[in-house]
């Protein structure tokens, strides 16, 4: 049986608040409200949750959601062993028992009918019925549910039901402004502020193409990747092409335009 200590965040993850999200999150946790984090990919949603788990000193159980995930994958299932069947808790049940923060990452990837199992945990009941086992798990007082998703998906299919949405308090994340983002890249990778500033400038040039053929802008995470490559000794222009342009698109016109932007910014 895993213990709460297995899921503790041991080191402080670096997180640069953009606004008052830390205070607000603490308030939401104090009231044990389920929390939803929205925002484009690579803007710091998961990092924020990790940081808060560390700050609050609570264990964190993360589930990366996918389309093949079933309710049993969250709740648990019977397994066979030598003596017969044995119940195995799923991550959600485990978190409810241990009093952990359960973080369902990219929740829209999961099928909507699967997600209904989280409903009883997210309202005043704070319980999880295990119908196959005939048990009603009452959530530990420290338990909290956090979900994240990216509303930028163009697909209409990938959205949450209203009945799911309306159980959460929500934070809207976005890419930080350029000064803040430069600071983040610097402290994350240790490269010079001037170079970091130019990487951010390129990322912003890319973000302006969103909707003109790009589904998503260049994320902070990709800037950090480019900065790491530069830290390994790559030339800035090559690192940018590799980390910030090639991953995000296959459209030759956009690649060409962004390569030109790299040339213009780095010379």
């Amino acid at each position: 049986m895993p213990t709460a200590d297995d899921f503790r965040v041991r080191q402080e993850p670096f997180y640069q608040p953009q606004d008052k999200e830390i205070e607000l999150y603490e308030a939401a946790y104090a009231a044990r409200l389920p929390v939803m984090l929205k925002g484009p990919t690579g803007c710091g949603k998961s990092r924020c949750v990790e940081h808060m788990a560390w700050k609050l000193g609570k264990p964190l159980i993360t589930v990366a959601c996918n389309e093949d995930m079933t309710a049993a994958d969250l709740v648990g299932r019977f397994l066979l062993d030598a003596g017969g069947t044995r119940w195995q808790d799923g991550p959600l049940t485990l978190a409810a028992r241990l009093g952990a923060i359960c973080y369902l990452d990219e929740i829209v990837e999961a099928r909507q009918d699967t997600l209904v199992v989280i409903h009883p945990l997210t309202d005043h009941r704070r319980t999880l019925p295990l119908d196959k086992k005939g048990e009603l798990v009452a959530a530990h007082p420290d338990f909290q549910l956090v979900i994240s998703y990216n509303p930028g998906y163009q697909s209409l299919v990938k959205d949450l039901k209203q009945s799911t949405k309306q159980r959460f308090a929500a934070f809207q994340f976005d890419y930080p402004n350029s000064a803040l983002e430069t600071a983040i890249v610097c402290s994350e990778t240790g490269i010079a502020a001037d170079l970091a500033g130019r990487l951010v400038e390129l990322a912003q040039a890319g973000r302006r193409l969103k909707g003109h053929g790009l589904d998503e802008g260049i994320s902070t995470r990709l800037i950090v990747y480019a900065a790491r490559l530069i830290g390994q000794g790559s030339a800035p222009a090559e690192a940018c092409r590799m980390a910030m342009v090639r991953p995000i698109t296959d459209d030759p016109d956009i690649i060409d335009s962004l390569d030109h932007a790299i040339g213009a910014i780095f010379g």
Partner: protein
Amino acid sequence: MAVPGIRQVADARQRLMANPEAQAAWATLDCGFASVADVFDDCYAAAKQALTDDELPAFIETTRRLGKLGRGAEPPLAFLEGWPRVVATIPQNEALPLLLETIDELQKSPNGPALTPLLQTLGGVAERLRSALALEHYLRLARDLAARTSGSIHGRQVTQASPALPEFLRVAPQLLALVPLAGVRRWLEDGIRLSGDHPERLREYFALRSPESRALLQQQRAGTLFADVERRLALSQQSLWQDDSRLIPYSTAFVDQVQQPYLAADGMRLPDVLEKRAGVSGSDRYRAMLAHLSGHRRWSTPLVADNWSPLQRLSVEAFEDARIDALIVHRYPGLRRILLALHPIPAAGACDPARENTLRHRLTRLSRACIDRDYRDPAPLIDEFAGRFAALQAGGNASTRAMAELALAYATRSRLPSDQFAQVHFAETEVDYRDDNRHLWTFIETGDEEESFTPPPRAAEPEASGLPPRHYPEWDAASQSYRPDWVAVYEALHPAGRAADIDALLARHAVLARRLKRLLDLVKPQARVRERYRENGSELDLDVAIDALVDWQSGRLPEARIEISQRTAGRDISVLLLLDLSQSLNATLPGSGQRVLDTAREAVALLAWAIDQLGDACAIAGFHSNTRHEVRYHHLKGFSEAWDDTVKARLAAVEAGWSTRMGAALRHGGRLLAARRSEKRLLLVLTDGEPADIDVSDPDYLLADTRQAVSELAASGIDCFCLSLDPKADAYVAQIFGRRWRVLDRIEQLPEQLPLIYLNLTR
């Protein structure tokens, strides 16, 4: 002796020339044309400059021959005047035999009159070609064109002159200025194939008067075409300058004067093609232009121009342009290389201020000194002002106003008497990425520079009915290239008829419908499917698990796959049914007296009903064509429409006529289908014959185009399937659709077969 009534003509052979040598040459020429005699002295002097003494006799001899051809004074005149220009680039001993051979051939054919334009433009052509080999190719092209476009009335003898040749020879220098010789050859081939035997069309094409001729020539041009990079440029504008103004090309091919890019109210105007220059690619040159224009839009403020002289304004523009470039380089340091490569470096001693107007030359040097820190101009004044410019820029508070003051100070101190001269030194002074600065000036009073001009009231345009046409290219297999914007497709909702007719048709096929219904129920997707015997399922399959446990405890190998999972099996299909509505559908079927069209209508109604039962997304459209200028595409049912009375009414009203230009219809249908986000996208074509149209004589042309359209669709993930009602279709349909086709020999079976084929395709 004077004969009364006959005008005395002085014999030109007796004319006196300027010097004895010219006189001797004139005597050799033995030419009686007064117009030749008039210019002979000057021409001879010019020829003596260009030709060596050894070459002169051959020159005179050729002129003599041309005078004796019996084609008037024009050929010798054109040769006398043009030949020195030819010899300036191609040696006479190489060029002359080639020319003589061509002259002989043309002279013997009905195309003799084309000799005059040939000789007239030969000088300009040679300047472009610059080698004997290229000249040989050019002359061969001309002879080839003559041979292929000359007509004959009876039998083998060529009796009619080519209408294309003189036109081609006249525009040849213009053509060669735009495209290399190989491009001219392709353009020529296209022209011969397109215009075929129509003399008028040939003439239009080869004189560059018809739009397709210009469009095809544009395609052959070297360099970066605006149309090819338009999207990239717009994306760069958006990402670097946050500017989404429209980019509009202007033509550079058919105008004489050089035009600069400019800012207009409706967008940024750029040339339609740019070649690589100074190591900077065409697309980078476009981007330099756009950066400069965007810089003006961002940092320049208009000035009132009324009180300034043109000279002062020129200086202000030079300083302001330099300021914009400096700001661009400051913002995007990587653009520095491009701008400096494109900005000319005029040599200080290139012109003489005592004889020429060197204003532009000095300003370009100044502008170079302002934007290039490594350039030091020898003139102390220019150096001083470049320093003052740099100081202003470094302060960070430079504005258009400040530049104007600096420019006025410069204009006052740098003035020279020669600045009023008409002869301006232009070489190396064009900074071609800069615009014409029309946005920089506002005029309080309309001065005499601008003409006040009210456009004449235009007649009210007739209101367009329906949507404007959408243009599609067409594939030309012979030249392996697309003909740009070749076909106009007009789309419209089909007018409605009586929906009850379709219901009656369906009622007639009630037995068939019942049989289909049973089949459909089998195919119809079940919402959830249980998948047993999974190693990793969603839950335990208790029956299997217990069996496994029994096996385990009795010492046998247990079944490991004891879980069960559930899968949703949905059909995710979009289908577009495209009906050929050409005239041949009006043929009646032997026996029943029913038209093919009626049978097709029944089949489509049944299929639409079946697809509706299945729940797949389905659209129905019909097409026919009347030359490439009018392909009609009728919407009968949209993807989002239900199979209801409005749709049935449209289907009931379908009538057949005209021809089958299938490629364009496929492209248009594919475009609509490509917008669907379905797993499988299917384009079903129902036709009764091969692609054909009345403006196309080559039967393989539309066939190849349709095949190309099908492979384009395949590349974008759309499957095409053809159901042909033409019993002889085997000969061609496989060429177009590969293995995705079926020929229906007995058309009466169509209503039964069509839904079945669809089911098989999507099973």
